[in-house]
């Protein structure tokens, strides 16, 4: 188990900066997920930890040792790649045992360790096959076994499940979770899939355009997004975000003259202040027209989810999505009234997108 300290880490390619200084502390035994849209620098950060990319600035320390100048093999990390990266000409046994062979371990010990690892991911029946004769899920398990056999200090996962189908992905997620529980090795997992991130992470790192937006527990990030970007990125269906400002009476004005009563946001309702108001679809409910603060809207279309449905509506030029459990049919064009749950409101500055606490 190892602690990873990332201090002011930067990455430039020629003159383009792709990571602008990242500070993260990863505790020993923690399962950290780096989440972000493609091109945000999350894989680059992971590869810098692995030693596959040079670090342009700042430092990375594993277990207190600065590893900036160390070769990948000296860092004690093992990596699972997106496309498995198995050696196509070697059998599963040779694939898993290759790192031990390079380390010149005696054959008997090598075989014993390969066997043990293969058992833990149920690969024994396939040990003499080649990667080409395996299914996607099996190849993924070989890739994980290959990482595990070295008994590394740190596991690095680079979007390992993006080539698997949805069902297999869920199964592999459970497997990774179980392995982490059993082995307790510090793990860093990169993904762009938020469900994967939310279910796996002890600690979630949200990255955007080379910067860390927020670090926290998955629930923390979900309930208290630190920025407009995080609010928009985390959660499916996405959070409703309204750009607007407060009027003299403290009402929130948005769209083409729409008004929302947000009296619960006391203290931050400065008239004229430009803000983004966010509320998750589950915080928006249908109510009667006479409810205090009800927002009139017109249904655009309804998205059936099975157990519930999403009502996409237009409220004075602003799009609003509400989670609804009712089953009565709603046609598009129907006028409805919506209300915002008190506790579910998030406020962000329009200027820099940071959260305004209230």
């Amino acid at each position: 188990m190892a602690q990873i300290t990332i201090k002011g880490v930067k990455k430039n390619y020629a003159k383009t900066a792709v990571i602008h200084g990242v500070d993260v502390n990863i505790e020993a035994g923690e399962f950290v997920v780096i989440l972000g849209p493609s091109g945000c620098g999350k894989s680059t950060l992971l590869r810098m930890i692995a030693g596959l990319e040079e670090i342009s600035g700042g430092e990375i320390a594993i277990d207190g040792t600065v590893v900036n100048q160390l070769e990948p093999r000296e860092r004690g990390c093992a990596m699972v790649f997106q496309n498995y990266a198995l050696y196509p000409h070697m059998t599963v046994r040779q694939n898993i045992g290759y790192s031990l062979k390079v380390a010149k371990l005696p054959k008997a010990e090598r075989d014993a360790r390969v066997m043990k690892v293969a058992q833990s991911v149920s690969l024994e029946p396939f040990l003499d096959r080649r990667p080409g004769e395996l299914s996607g899920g099996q190849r993924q398990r070989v890739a994980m076994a290959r990482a595990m056999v070295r008994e590394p200090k740190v596991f690095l996962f680079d979007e390992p499940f993006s080539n698997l189908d949805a069902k297999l992905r869920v199964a592999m997620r459970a497997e990774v979770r179980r392995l982490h529980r059993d082995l307790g090795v510090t793990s860093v997992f990169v993904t762009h899939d938020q469900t994967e991130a939310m279910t796996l992470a002890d600690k979630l790192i949200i990255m955007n355009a080379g910067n860390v937006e927020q670090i926290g527990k998955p629930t923390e990030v979900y309930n208290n997004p630190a920025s407009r970007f995080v609010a928009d990125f985390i959660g499916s269906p996405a959070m409703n975000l309204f750009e607007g400002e407060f009027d003299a009476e403290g009402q929130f004005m948005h769209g083409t003259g729409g008004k929302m009563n947000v009296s619960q946001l006391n203290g931050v309702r400065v008239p004229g202040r430009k803000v983004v108001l966010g509320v998750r679809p589950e915080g928006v409910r249908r109510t009667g027209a006479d409810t205090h603060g009800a927002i009139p809207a017109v249904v655009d279309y309804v998205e059936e989810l099975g157990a519930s449905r999403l009502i996409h509506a237009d409220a004075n030029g602003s799009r609003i999505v509400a989670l609804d459990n009712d089953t009565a049919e709603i046609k598009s064009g129907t006028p409805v009234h919506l209300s915002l749950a008190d506790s579910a409101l998030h406020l962000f500055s329009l200027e820099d997108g940071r959260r305004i606490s209230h």
Partner: protein
Amino acid sequence: MIERSPFFDALTYAVMIIGLILVVIPFWVVIVAASQSLQEVSRVPISLLPSDQLWANLSEAWARADLGPKMLNSFIVAIGVTIGKITLAAMSAFAIVFFNFKARMICFWLIFITLMLPLEVRIVPTYAIAANALLPFQVILDTFGISWLVQAVSGIQVSLNWNLLNSYTGLILPLVATATGTFLYRQFFMTIPDELAEASKMDGASAMEFFRDVLIPLSRTNMLALATIMFVGSWNQYLWPLLITTDRANFGTVVMQLKALIPAQNGTPDWNVTMAGALIIMLPPLLVVAFMQRWFVRGLISRDK
């Protein structure tokens, strides 16, 4: 392309058969002539049916051109060149594809340009180098006054000399450099995903271990294809061995011996023996291609996954 018209089918067959005949007829003439007696082969027009003198002619050619030792020479040279070319091609392509150094593209283009400079074009300077392989170093030492300095200080006259004439080294070494091979290997290495190199790095393998344990086994079909072309090419070398070996008795190759088999101007016109000799000499490359063609086609066209 699939065409389902009888006329088109007939046309393709016709073209194919004509092509086949064009290729096979010379071989047939060689085989027929090699099996005839002197009287039969001298008859005009020549009969296109084989006779029964094949074995006698073969042994006559074998003895006359001293093909035993020459065959051995040819094998040593062809195998040496093939192995050398493959090693050099694989390693230079490895350097060009997997290492990110500044002069990478320059190196690649320099190698590529030599495609346009076959041995025949640069045969005079190559001969000069073969006569003294250390000549370039001598020139460098002389130009920069180092040899003068050494002589002034120690009184020793610097005169580097490494003669490659009349040696296997001289026969093999200048033929080893190959742009074709490097290019073929480069194309293959570029299809190998970066992740594979990274995975081996994470597994703790050094660059050479990656080369040996991953790239070489993966490029097996490629290597066999290349070996086939290179073997045939170097077996058929005529000009270079002719130039570099004055000691034909010891270092001559079989292809050079073809000359010895051609009847002299006023000698007996025993073309049957000449043809028998040609038959023997073209047999090894023919067998190599026959055995390797499965790999050859696979290595050049597709690759097994």
